[in-house]
């Protein structure tokens, strides 16, 4: 992995020295175990802090929605294949201008979570060598996705009866403390004023009781349907360990089955809920 680090530093140094970008968002060594932490390099000297290894789990695209990055005219972002998918999502929705972001892609064999396990997104990854970038660090890495990895996650839910599923989600969502870490970590939760923060009228109750939690988690899953790229930032951030990815994966499966659409692949394609087909499924409508 060290030649990736060297290349990242080289490119970042160059971009910062010749003013191509105002800053480069990347990863640096963290302060807790082997954890890595997001870093903002503003000068060529800062670039020497940047690195890449298997603990670079954060999706840095989430910084596009907030200052200081948001107000910058041009910014460089170091990104794995999964992170780039979320950028593609933002481009599809015209939330970011292509010219603003210089993508410093990095080839990746997969990352490791804090507990040492390999995330499902890495098991299912087919973007180990990104194809959407301005510069790329690292040798080509062949993709070897496990075609069952994502579907397997849903097996437990699929096997439950309707009542069992209801009980399962009520228990899980009861844990929610409405910290909104899921929303904050998500690169595609970009609303300046989230639906949960609106109170005229108040559609989503802000209280962390079962009814409010159900409403919040449901509406977040719905607003991400067809948009979520399964980067797992939300589930990783959740402090009470709610299996959020089960909801997001279930929505991704529905969108694939019903509209033959996968998020984060092609910036030119219309997102599925913005368009329609004359012969969409009508069978459930009286």
């Amino acid at each position, binding site marked *: 992995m060290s030649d990736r680090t060297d290349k990242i530093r080289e490119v970042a140094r160059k971009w910062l020295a010749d003013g191509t970008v105002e800053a480069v968002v990347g990863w640096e060594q*963290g*302060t807790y175990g082997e954890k890595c*932490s997001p870093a903002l390099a503003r000068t060529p000297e800062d670039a020497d802090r940047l690195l890449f290894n298997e603990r670079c789990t954060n999706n840095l695209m989430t910084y596009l929605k907030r200052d200081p990055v948001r107000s910058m005219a041009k910014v460089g972002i170091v990104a794995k294949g999964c992170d780039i998918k979320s950028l593609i999502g933002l481009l599809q929705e015209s939330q970011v201008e292509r010219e603003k972001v210089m993508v410093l892609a990095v080839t990746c064999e997969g990352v490791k979570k804090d507990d040492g396990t390999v995330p499902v997104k890495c098991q299912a990854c087919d973007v180990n060598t990104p194809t959407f970038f301005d510069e790329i660090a690292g040798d080509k890495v062949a993709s070897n996705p496990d075609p069952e990895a994502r579907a397997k996650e849903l097996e437990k839910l699929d096997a439950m009866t309707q009542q069992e599923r209801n009980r399962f989600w009520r228990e899980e969502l009861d844990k929610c403390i409405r*910290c909104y870490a899921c929303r904050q*970590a998500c690169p595609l939760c970009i609303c300046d004023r989230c639906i949960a923060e609106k109170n005229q009228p108040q559609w989503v109750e*802000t*209280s962390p009781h079962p009814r*409010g939690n159900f409403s919040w988690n449901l509406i977040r899953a719905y607003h991400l349907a067809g948009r979520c790229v399964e980067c797992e930032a939300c589930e990783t*951030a959740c402090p*009470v360990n709610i299996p959020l990815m089960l909801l997001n994966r279930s929505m991704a499966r529905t969108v694939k089955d019903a509209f033959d659409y996968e998020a984060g692949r092609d910036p030119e394609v219309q997102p599925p809920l913005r368009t329609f087909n004359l012969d969409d499924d009508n069978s459930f409508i009286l």
Partner: protein
Amino acid sequence: MPHMTLDRTDLPSLAQALAGQGRRLVLPVREGQELFYREGADPAQLDLSTIPKNSIKEFLFPKCEKILEYEYSGNDVVIEDVAPDAKPTVIFCARPCDAASLPVVEPLWNWDYKDKFFNERREQTLLVTYACRTAPDEACFCASVGLSPSADQGSDVMLYAVDDATVAVRPVSPKGKELEEVFSKFKKGEVSDEALEAFAKEGDESLAHRKPLDKVKGWLEAHFEDPLWEEKAFRCIGCGTCTFLCPTCHCFDIQDESVFDGGCRLKNWDGCQFPLFTLHTSGHNPRDTQPKRYRQRIYHKYAIYPEKFGKILCTGCGRCVAHCPVNLSLYDVVATAQERAEKGE
């Protein structure tokens, strides 16, 4: 003086005995890769391998609590106070940093208003604290804020695992002393004061690398506009994890939830890291960027609260460090402030 010991394997039965006196039982159990304090958990599942992810805060200050009900009657509103749902409780094998959070927040809950919800729960809660032989997690820094892995502040009874098979018991408070009868049923032997001192020393040594943070307040008071905040806190995503896992964070939001002829008023957890926290109705937000909000967090804990109440609003439990999704370490930030203060910067 001698302190009684019991077999480690008797801890679940001791928990059961304390609960059996009509108390709800809270203890740390494993869920997946992590530990959580859970109410009503099976004592046989007691897990002491590390510090739980949640703090004991939720058992004294729940995330959502009804404080009153109201009904519209003609042109009047009839208000009915709600009694706090305070049941006798034993928190079994809390960590010292969790127990110590209670005396830290007590002045706040009794400052300009005596919060009966907290006070009645506190009154009804028995804290049986499991001292840490060595700091359980790399993120721990209780020693930096005047505590230690075997601190007894806030505890009613202390438990010390003096070796792999033996746990010593030391009642701390009058409430704790009243329980000697319950404990003595499990007595297997005795240890001396020296044994407990040696235990405490081992704990202190495990945190010898943690700086005391005694100069942070002074530095903060002189460096409000320091570039440190932008530098360190650019990475903060405002997720609120640190706030909600913190045993001493206590901000709350009041929500009225109504249907047509009445409703209830709820007290919910809130956090200063959220963008709306200081949004005025005029539209102005004095803390409109994340570094400003993060700065506020540090100031509140290490300057403002000490100024008001004489205590640091932090027990060094390290949860904010261990669970921050972007590894923004509060310890790193305040230790940097301490370092700069020591250098006179």
